């Protein structure tokens, strides 16, 4: 008994020694054990935790792939097959990494859609949302850079298409493209710098942003599907009445979610790692060939909606000297950029779609269905009808945002309850 007490006091004096120099306990309490979260949320609120899990999977499998990967024009493709065949469990690392990239986007899109549905970007969470948007941007860059690394036909030609976009910028475009490539064509020189960006620069930025994202969130408090402010009603200890400590309630709710995620994730990794050509495309099993374009270049599914928007712009603005290619680039960039300003477009007096008016609901449905349709079209070769549909969907993609200041201000909203 006394021994136990002794060791306890030793532990606690040790802790206080550390805490005086480095606030471990304080931060644990602040971000984990005592941090209040709304006690009633729905499954949408689990995607953030899963995103952290995939991020870790990507970093760890990525580090392991890096141990065997060769970042040269001659060696890259062969080194991927080396990983797949000769390295013990190399295939698992690679499939986890490639499936992880898709999972990352899948979760990211749901995570963001949650934000749009429940107004999670509204005051005072604007910065949380902004950091998130930067993360989306970085993830898109990261995926693109990583996609080039296996140096297959699709890596090469898809990268070629995207890099040519930079060439469309008036005046500086062609020089900018050459500068990014470090060569007059996409080549091994480009591959090496993309490798450095993919494994060091972008992941580092992402880690930093994830930290900002979480810190900002913990400062202003997590939201809930009702849009109820839980801070209003507190008990004697200052704990929100509708809140519960992060640990064990939130942590333990993330565990079954993680289990379900792993079931789906590993079902893909073990039984359909190429996802029928959607996760790893067939042409990417052929080494990059400068002289031969694959018959059909399609982006991976997670870029497809944006790629569709890009392709849907078949006209320019001649009197401004804007070619259709450049206008496509602008609108493509705008489709991501518009997400950044959403917090300032929404003028509604309620947060959640549950209490917003009918226009907001229609807007959300329009946005979601056009996003999915654009994604579908993006993986298909173009024809006239598809281009037309893509153009309409592009309008429906932007309209909910552009009109947001109007309809959110004037539509009739329902009263939000006081408590959860």
């Amino acid at each position, binding site marked *: 008994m006394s021994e136990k007490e002794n060791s306890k006091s030793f532990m606690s004096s040790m802790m206080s020694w550390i805490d005086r120099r480095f606030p471990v306990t304080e931060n644990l309490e602040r971000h984990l054990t005592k941090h209040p979260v709304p006690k009633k949320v729905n499954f949408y609120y689990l995607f953030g935790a899963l995103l952290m899990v995939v991020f870790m999977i990507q970093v760890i499998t990525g580090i392991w792939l890096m141990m065997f990967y060769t970042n040269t024009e001659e060696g890259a493709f062969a080194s991927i097959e080396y990983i797949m065949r000769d390295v013990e469990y190399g295939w698992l690392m690679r499939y986890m990494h490639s499936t992880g990239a898709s999972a990352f986007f899948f979760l990211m899109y749901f995570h963001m859609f949650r934000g749009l549905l429940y107004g999670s970007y509204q005051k005072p969470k604007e910065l949380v949302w902004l950091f998130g948007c930067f993360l989306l941007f970085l993830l898109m860059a990261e995926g693109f850079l990583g996609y080039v690394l296996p140096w297959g036909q699709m890596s090469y030609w898809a990268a070629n298409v995207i890099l040519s976009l930079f060439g469309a910028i008036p005046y500086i475009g062609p020089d900018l493209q050459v500068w990014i490539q470090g060569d007059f064509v996409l080549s091994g020189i480009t591959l090496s710098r993309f490798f450095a960006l993919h494994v060091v620069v972008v992941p580092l930025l992402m880690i930093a942003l994830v930290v900002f994202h979480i810190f900002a969130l913990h400062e202003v408090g997590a939201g809930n599907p009702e849009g109820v402010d839980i801070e209003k009603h507190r008990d004697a200890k200052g704990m929100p009445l509708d809140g519960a400590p992060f640990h064990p309630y939130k942590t333990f709710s993330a565990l079954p979610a993680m289990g379900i995620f792993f079931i789906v994730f590993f079902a893909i990794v073990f039984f359909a790692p190429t996802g029928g050509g959607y996760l790893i495309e*067939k042409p990417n099993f052929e080494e990059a060939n400068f002289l031969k374009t694959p018959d059909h270049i399609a982006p991976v599914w997670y870029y497809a909606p944006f790629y569709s928007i890009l392709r849907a712009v078949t006209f320019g603005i001649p009197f401004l000297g804007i070619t259709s290619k450049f206008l496509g680039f602008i609108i493509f960039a705008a489709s991501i950029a518009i997400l950044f300003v959403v917090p300032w477009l929404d003028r509604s007096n309620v947060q959640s779609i549950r209490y917003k008016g009918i226009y907001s609901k229609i807007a959300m449905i329009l946005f979601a269905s056009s996003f999915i349709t654009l994604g579908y079209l993006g993986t298909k070769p173009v024809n006239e009808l598809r281009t037309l549909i893509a153009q309409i969907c592009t309008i429906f993609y932007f309209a909910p945002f552009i009109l947001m200041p109007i309809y959110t201000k004037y539509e009739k909203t329902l009263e939000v309850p006081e408590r959860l």
Partner: protein
Amino acid sequence: MKKFLILLIPLSIFIYSAGENKCGSLEKCDYYSADVHDTYSLQRGLGIYMNYCSTCHTLELLRWNRLQRDLDIPETILIEDLIANPDIKIADYMTFGLPEVSAIGAPDLTLRTRVRGEDWIYTYLRTFYEDPEQLTGTNNLVYPGTSMPNILVGLQGIQTLDNDGTIKLKSEGSLSRAEFDDSMKDLVNFLAYASEPARITREKNGIFVILFFIIFTAVMWLLYREYAKEIK
């Protein structure tokens, strides 16, 4: 919220019906999905590969000893019958010293099944027909103008193309149609194996990983319920 989930259903339908399904001049390839777990089939496929394909095509990413291990081939058979060349080590690749793309342009076959798809290869091998206009004397429905001669003609028999675009058997080969199709399945199985040797372990062990996570989820769910009821 269920409305939004319903929107996802079309997405899941698109996932597998991907791409334009055209198969050369055919509307669709004959469906075939390789089975790499039938070791005898893989061995038979290897036999066909060695007899008919290996004169022109290499397997530059497959090692002899890997093949031996995965296909359960006795060492003496490997060394005396399959490699049959004292200069080749068992850890070497199955290239027989051929260049990656041989003089007549035959590509390396290791990854072809992954590039083209299993159904494509399966259909391609079975749709050669007589065509005097071609250098090789034969043409193919899936890959019109292919420069590969129909080396399997002895097994399959000579096929001709009817005016309506279907294929007819002109003279019998040594195998019946069903036997020939089975052999081609063996060959595709073998090529699918060659394109990804890890597939055998991958598909075999995946199920245990998934079962584990099902149990994991169940336990974690109970744990979560246990705590969640406090804050209901």
